[in-house]
């Protein structure tokens, strides 16, 4: 009995060591190493792995490509996160209204994109962005309006954001809606007796009540946004505007498998992980401090 919990924890622990701890440790180790080529780099002894110190890190940070990718992803995230969570909150509040019709149908439909792989979602929207096959360009053409090139420049950010919003809103809506339903009905009854309108109830009571799940969805959205890879990779064949290093993770992939420099890739991967941790935990701390202040008031 005393050893039983350890027995049950053995399978997850072994997998954790093999597929989480070991790879992370190995990536950190690789990030401090580099390949030194002597002579022409031919023969078996010509390429040796040596200690590199922080060289991979300084190169990643000064090389420009990684930072440009980070800036692009930041711009993309500034669209995706507010729009996606705003819509998720709006739909959750609407579902939680009395006398709403077709609630189960709309709830399931808005959730459905969750079951569509990011690659397939990007592919579907990619075709809808192509002027040759898109229904929107057809309609605009009938109205004699020009078709904006959605896969270039600024609109590309909107095009990519739209794919993420489409795929992610439903899941976040469910998380927020679940939190809303946990609020006891008596709370609203009291507010209604005091003459609050449904809008006031939503703004003053419901949104503060679900603040913890909003924080949680925000937290996971930031992480997912920084790691965007599938959607821009899938759109790449359709446009020249998505480079092989468009997002930080694409840069890591490109360095590891395109250029074959695993040491640079490892340093960049560690940097992306650190940035993710700092940003997401920074946000959590800020959110906690805010709620504590409000509690004190």
């Amino acid at each position, binding site marked *: 009995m005393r050893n039983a919990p350890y027995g049950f924890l053995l399978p997850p622990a072994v997998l954790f060591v093999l597929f989480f701890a070991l790879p992370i440790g190995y990536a950190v180790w690789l990030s401090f190493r580099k390949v030194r080529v002597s002579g022409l780099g031919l023969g078996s002894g010509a390429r040796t792995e040596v200690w590199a110190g922080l060289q991979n890190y300084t190169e990643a940070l000064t090389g420009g490509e990684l930072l440009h990718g980070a800036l692009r992803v930041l711009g993309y995230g500034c669209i995706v996160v507010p729009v996606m969570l705003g819509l998720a909150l709006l739909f959750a509040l609407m579902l939680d209204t009395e006398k709403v019709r077709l609630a189960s149908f709309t709830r399931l439909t808005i959730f459905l994109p969750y079951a569509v792989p990011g690659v397939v979602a990007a592919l579907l929207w990619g075709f*809808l962005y192509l002027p040759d096959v898109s229904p929107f360009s057809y309609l605009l053409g009938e109205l004699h309006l020009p078709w904006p090139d959605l896969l270039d420049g600024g609109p590309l950010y909107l095009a990519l954001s739209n794919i993420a919003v489409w795929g992610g809103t439903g899941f976040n809506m469910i998380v927020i809606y679940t939190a809303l339903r946990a609020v006891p009905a008596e709370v609203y009854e009291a507010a209604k007796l005091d003459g609050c309108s449904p809008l006031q109830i939503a703004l003053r009571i419901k949104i503060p009540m679900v603040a913890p799940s909003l924080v949680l969805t925000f937290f996971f959205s930031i992480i997912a946004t920084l790691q965007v890879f599938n959607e821009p990779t899938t759109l790449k064949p359709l446009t020249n505007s998505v480079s092989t290093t468009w997002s930080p993770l694409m840069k890591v992939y490109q360095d590891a498998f395109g250029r074959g420099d695993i040491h640079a890739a*490892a340093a960049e991967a560690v940097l992306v992980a650190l940035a993710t941790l700092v940003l997401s935990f920074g946000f959590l701390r800020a959110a906690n401090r805010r709620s504590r202040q409000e509690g004190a008031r």
Partner: protein
Amino acid sequence: MNALAARTNTTPGTAQGPPPRRRTALVPTVTLLLGALYCLLPVAWVVIAATKSGRELFSTFTFLPGSGFADNLRDLNTYRDGVYWRWMGNSALYAGLGALLSTAVSACGGYALAVYRFRGRETVFNILLAGVLMPPVILAVPQYLLLAEADLTDSYVSVLLPLVLSPYGVYLSRIYAAAAVPADVVEAGRMDGAGEWRIFTRVALPMMVPGLVTVFLFQFVAVWNNFLLPYIMLSDDEKFPITLGLYTLLEQGANTPALYTLVITGAFLAVVPLIALFLVVQRFWSLDLLSGAVKS
């Protein structure tokens, strides 16, 4: 939905208060319908586009069905000796077997963390949770290199094993086990002389089933939708899952519009099974379980 209806019915005010207005709440209903329309748009498009022949795709209005579905299907079936269906089969294998293993591991871990008091319990839990935060790429690239050392890359195992441990699955299992398995039931089992493993498999597991179904579905979707890991691990396209297969098809098709119809039909057929799965499953399983909601 049922719970929502139940709540509005049992709200005290509606029974005795002023007569309930029959009017539909217009703004919420319309907002939700617009949201649903937005979510259905690409799906509706691909359903119709899959019926078009290559010529119709570029010449007729998008939302008019075409006449080429049978031809498209035949083209897809014969494309490289039906490799498309092999990708679908691979995806089913990766997602089905992977989710099954993952659920078993999550159940063990979640049960241990919920039922036992032992030193280091919270530490173990927090370390596991930290795994959620790791960008897949910081894992995937060294996972590839480590598996290459063991000569295991470009194999089914290389896509299956790294996804078996799901930190979110362990987290959900812990919540479900804590809510569904009462401590006195475990204690009663011990009184009857049952071993810990026997109590887990015979008593606790059946109680955890609704939660474990959720873990299974969550992980099934996560593996089915995964792209990065197979993209990194696999080079033999006989082992590709559907996401990677469609991607390579699109990559080749980008310059050959003749392949567009193949990609579109393939995307259509790839979307159908998961949507069907959710439509069937939601009849006896609540979406809310996905976010860790536990019925009281």
